[in-house]
């Protein structure tokens, strides 16, 4: 379980709290969406939840972040890497840049954990199959589309077998096809029992994927509840979040004085 208790965080060199009194739990196999306007604190929450803040980027952390009962502050980065993975929005920066094939790229993290070669190969094959990109194994990762690169990045994290994955706007820079590829992959991961914390502007991605959704506003949790409740909340737009397409369509239909049954 990933547990944040009364977490606050301030970036180095600033006086403003980027996160305030955050309480959040992510159980094994649970999928939680995080939505909010730009600068609301979604990325900061991802960095804190993955242990990268403050360990890697500095700053001041208040409260506690526990991963499977261990405080992130007490763990080395490579120990954290085995427990929680993080995927950023820019697929290009996710690549190691030193692998000539997708297979080697996906193996990079697992190799770093000190696993023996047979175990690495087994994990890479499983990760590629789980994400549905086994056919890309021999391709040069730097020559893939953005969506495929992002899938490779997720597969690379998966090969490290973290109990939890934190994804910071994983489809933000992708075209519709890339979004669909990543969404399918995340659904498969969730079905396989990986806990997912997904910060995302695209609420359509969260529909049917998340069990809970958290709304972040100005560094604090403004609302948390089941995805079915939060994603239809009329206050979403006030928080700078665009509701899913089906919700907007239903409202447009209702505003026009018509009724429609949406799937």
């Amino acid at each position, binding site marked *: 379980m990933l547990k944040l208790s009364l977490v606050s965080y301030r970036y180095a060199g600033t006086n403003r709290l980027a996160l305030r009194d955050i309480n959040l739990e992510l159980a094994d196999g649970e999928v939680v969406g995080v939505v909010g306007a730009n600068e609301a604190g979604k990325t900061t929450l991802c960095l804190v939840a993955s242990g990268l803040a403050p360990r890697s980027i500095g700053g001041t952390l208040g409260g506690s972040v526990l991963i499977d009962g261990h405080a992130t502050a007490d763990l080395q980065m490579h120990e954290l890497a085995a427990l929680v993975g*993080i995927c950023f929005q820019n697929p290009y920066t996710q690549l190691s840049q030193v692998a000539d094939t997708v297979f080697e790229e996906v193996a990079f993290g697992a190799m770093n954990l000190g696993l023996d070669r047979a175990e690495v190969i087994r994990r890479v094959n499983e990760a590629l199959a789980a994400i549905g990109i086994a056919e890309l194994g021999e391709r040069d990762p730097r020559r893939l589309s953005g969506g495929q690169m992002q899938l490779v990045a997720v597969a690379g994290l998966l090969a490290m077998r973290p109990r939890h994955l934190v994804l910071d706007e994983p489809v933000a820079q992708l075209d519709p096809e890339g979004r669909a590829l990543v969404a399918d992959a995340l659904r498969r991961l969730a079905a396989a029992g990986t806990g997912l914390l997904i910060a995302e502007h695209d609420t359509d991605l969260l529909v049917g994927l998340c069990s809970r959704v958290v709304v972040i506003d100005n560094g604090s949790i403004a609302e948390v509840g089941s995805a079915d409740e939060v994603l239809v909340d009329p206050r979403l737009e006030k928080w700078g979040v665009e509701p899913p397409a089906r919700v907007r369509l239903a409202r447009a239909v209702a505003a026009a004085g018509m009724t429609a049954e949406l799937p």
Partner: protein
Amino acid sequence: MILGGVFWPLVIVGLLVLLPAAASRVLPQLLRFAVLFSLPIAISALLVNLFFYPGAQTVIFRLGPITATAEGLSFAIEILCRIAAISGAVTLFYLTTKPSELVLDLERRGVPARLAFVANASVQTVPAMAERAQVIVAAQRARGLNTEGSVWRRIRGIVPIVGPVMLGSIAEVEERSMTLESRGFTHPGRRDLLWSPPDALWQRLLRWLLVVGLVGVTIAHFVGWL
């Protein structure tokens, strides 16, 4: 007389650079790259030695106040031969060795993973930055930047291209370093590598033969046989 001192060096360059390049089917590229890289220094070495070799007596021709000498030409050819050997060997290495395989092999031989990564990433960054620069050049041209024409205009055009290339790369560094950390890059100890570059018995023998040959040539040079 002029080529007498460089006969064996030329044979060695032919045997150890040109022949392997031909066998690797990179001879045309090798000649092109090696000539391009060494041309400026080769021209200056030729001119300086041909016309200004100290103490030379045998005049070939005069060009106003300066004199071309046979001793200078002979020494210039020796220098050119050395330049050809160096640029040829470096170019052959570049054309026939994948950086990733080289670094992998270095790591297999005990070079720390971090050092190997830095070396590999540095080499791999060059084409990535070139690609980024092409995109930025296209974007800046679309916004009216003129990078063609006079030298001054070209120089002025560099600034709005270099800035975004460098700043973009720097901006990516933090995210890239966090990605590496989250992928266990700081894990202590050695990594079990996925594969090793092929290294046949004849390749190992040839490498040892080259080492023995190097030692032999060095000794031969100092005792006056070469």
